[in-house]
């Protein structure tokens, strides 16, 4: 029996299971760059307008931090930069897809059943990687064809499309390695996302600093360095290929050296009796959520330290350009720009914190679906108590994560401007101002869980829409009422002089109402609802 026997069947199984999800993310992510290009054609019909925009963008560190550098002032170059954040999403989708079809299957015990059939040792990992690779390539080709159809040069379009595809492939492979390391799918996802976050941080630091070598170390930095539409450097495409090959060369031997279901680290024994903290639903919820809170806090703390430290340099990057310096002077000089940059990055942290809230709320759905809610609800635990034990974490988690981000940002920014006592509370405040909008998303997830549990994962879709509205609203010239649908649109910029706290109260109230409606629904419905 060859090591790949049965791969074909597994590929078909994956395609059958993902027949909606896979085409969906391929299409959405492939169409977006095309919409960027058309909107740039519309927005800046003349070369002079584009040049002015490109110059402004090239000088705006918060845009560069988020999207990456801009090379040139052609529509193509602007589009390629605008698509910079899509690379993160492509990477995330790719690695989650691989983990979903490897470690998740193994953890659930479904792989065991398949493993008893005629299946080669490498078949599982190969099938998951193969499907994701092909999906990424398809995504890249569609992207390229779409961009070329708007009238952009074909070479640049294919350079961008391939760079996006290979970024996805690199992270798919990283997901494949992560799936070999831990026993749980959650752990594998965590490792993969941590690598993605580290790659983003490296790229961010490299692109905003004077020397961009850190960006060359980041798989998220390579796509820009292919320079689509700006004298394509095709050889850079070899970097993600080499990294994928190296990572796969580690993942494959690991996948056969370990037992089915086992991770790299052997499982440890636990206590023979329940400790004094484990007395009820809240004690249990703390056990289930504490790891996530800890790791998110560590990750956000590190990110905050980096962002805070880079802010001053970002603010100074306008030096040498008299025109921009003059504009900047009017909005508060270099420190004004640095704070605008910090405000923008903290609002991104707000979106991520909403992600924490959503996943903590959806934990209830996972518990119910796995049959772990039932025995608890058959004890003297009230339904409301069980629900609240998880909702507490969906609400407090974002507070903790954002507070850590704010404090870390304030600390390094304060050190760089020699004013820690001044910067710390301001940054903490700006970070915590994001909390109510994040709560609205968490509250919405609770609402779905209580009323329409089968649709609970839709909360992720709503968060994705909020991210898109926030990031693309201005580019796509969306009308204000559409932007107003996202709670994040209403979060005040507390780093500016004038802001109102009213939206914060309104959002908090809305979040509580949503959660309360979810609780009411949960009281009335059947458990488990499958």
């Amino acid at each position, binding site marked *: 029996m060859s090591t790949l026997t049965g791969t074909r069947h597994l590929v078909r199984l994956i395609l059958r299971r993902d027949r909606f999800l896979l085409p969906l993310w391929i299409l959405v992510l492939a169409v977006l760059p095309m919409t960027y290009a058309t909107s740039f054609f519309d927005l800046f019909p003349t070369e002079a307008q584009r040049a002015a925009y490109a110059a402004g963008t090239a000088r705006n560190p918060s845009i560069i931090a988020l999207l990456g550098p801009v090379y040139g002032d052609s529509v193509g170059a602007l589009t390629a930069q605008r698509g910079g954040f899509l690379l993160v999403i492509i990477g995330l989708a790719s690695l989650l897809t691989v983990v979903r079809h490897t470690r998740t299957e193994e*953890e659930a015990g479904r792989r065991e059943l398949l493993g008893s059939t005629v299946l080669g040792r490498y078949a599982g990992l190969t099938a998951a990687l193969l499907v994701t690779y092909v999906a990424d390539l398809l995504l890249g080709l569609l992207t390229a064809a779409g961009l070329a159809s708007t009238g952009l040069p074909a070479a640049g379009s294919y350079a961008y499309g391939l760079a996006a595809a290979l970024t996805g492939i690199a992270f798919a492979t990283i997901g494949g390695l992560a799936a070999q390391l831990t*026993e*749980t799918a959650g752990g594998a996802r965590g490792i993969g996302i941590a690598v993605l976050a580290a790659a983003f941080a490296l790229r961010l630091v490299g692109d905003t600093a004077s020397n961009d070598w850190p960006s060359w170390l980041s798989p998220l930095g390579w796509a820009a360095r292919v320079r689509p539409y700006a004298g394509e450097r095709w050889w850079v495409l070899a970097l993600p290929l080499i990294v994928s090959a190296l990572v796969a060369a580690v993942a494959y031997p690991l996948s056969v050296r370990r037992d089915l279901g086992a991770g790299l680290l052997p*499982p*440890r*024994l*636990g*206590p*023979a*009796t*329940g*400790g004094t903290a*484990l*007395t*009820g*639903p809240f*004690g*249990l919820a703390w*056990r*289930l959520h504490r*790891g996530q809170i800890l790791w998110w806090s560590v990750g956000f703390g590190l990110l905050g330290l980096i962002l805070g430290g880079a802010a001053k340099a970002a603010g100074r990057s306008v030096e040498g350009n008299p025109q921009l310096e003059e504009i900047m002077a009017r909005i508060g000089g270099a420190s004004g720009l640095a704070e605008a940059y910090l405000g923008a990055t903290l609002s991104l942290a707000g979106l991520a914190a909403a992600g924490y809230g959503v996943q903590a709320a959806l934990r209830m759905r996972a518990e119910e679906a*796995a*049959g*772990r809610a*039932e*025995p*608890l*609800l*058959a*004890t*003297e*635990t*009230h*339904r409301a108590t069980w629900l609240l034990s998880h909702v507490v974490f969906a609400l407090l988690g974002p507070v903790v994560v954002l507070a850590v981000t704010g404090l870390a940002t304030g600390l390094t920014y304060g050190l760089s401007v020699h004013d820690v006592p001044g910067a710390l509370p301001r940054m903490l405040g700006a970070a915590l101002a994001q909390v109510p909008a994040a709560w609205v998303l968490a509250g919405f997830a609770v609402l779905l869980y209580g009323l329409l549990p089968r649709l609970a994962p839709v909360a992720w879709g709503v968060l994705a829409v909020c991210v898109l509205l926030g990031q693309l609203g201005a580019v796509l010239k969306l009308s204000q009422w559409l932007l107003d649908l996202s709670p994040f649109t209403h979060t005040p910029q507390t780093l500016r002089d004038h802001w109102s706290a009213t939206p914060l109260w309104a959002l908090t109230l809305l979040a509580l109402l949503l959660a309360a409606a979810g609780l009411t629904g949960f009281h*009335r*419905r*059947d*458990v*488990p609802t499958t």
Partner: protein
Amino acid sequence: METPIEVSGLVKTFGRTRALDGLDLTVRAGEVHGFLGPNGAGKSTTIRVLLGLLRADAGAVRLLGGDPWRDAVALHRRLAYVPGDVTLWPTLSGGEVIDLLGRMRGGLDPKRRAELLESFELDPRKKGRAYSKGNRQKVGLVAALASDVELLVLDEPTSGLDPLMEEVFQHWVHRAKQDGRTVLLSSHILAEVEALCDRVTIIRNGRAVESGTLGELRHLHRTSIDAELAAPLDGLADLPGVHDLRVDGTRVRFDVDGAALDTALRRLTELGVRSLVSKPPTLEELFLRHYETTPVEVNA
């Protein structure tokens, strides 16, 4: 003393599926009540309604004198439940889960907990994800059997247990009965029900088709007779209540309804009986009659 479980005319639908279709079930205090039926008959749905997890669409349900939906929390203090497929939190040890569930039911007996762990040969230090199916089931059983409750609701609790552990389980259910607890034991393992239960309710397609003591149920059914006679047989085939008659010289084998047993035996003794083996129907046979053969009239 109140009747622990009283269900009549219970209906529960899921979309277009009618999972329970007018189910009746009565469990008396202090008895071990078998709740038998094939997969998909509605056993787990009934139990979830009794636990207040699912809401009944129609019918009357009383659990320990209360309404299982409205009084769920107060009632749950007095019962312990083991699902047919115990799933554990992957990061919690078995011992932690046992204590957690015990505390959430209002306390468990530490001495009995230790005894149970020993007799089920369960290592409580392993993490949830490291247990096999049978061991996960043991975690649920230890947590329930160590709890100080008056009613045990066990939904196919022994799935995945080996025969040795099955015996240990039976020992502990006997002990629970001696302690005055009431047990509702859903199962499709007939030997288990025969060994443990005072009364049985058989359910099929969401309805109770039989209910009574094993003796009463047998009374309604046929006895298998295998006899060696002194002379060749004639005239038995036309007797009402005799089925599947096979004659091989002087050897006869047939099944006979309870009501016709007396007449059939008289006919045999008239001819002279050299040897006779009679067997009561096993639950397997009762079961087969209800689920595999032609439809049988519902006995109230």
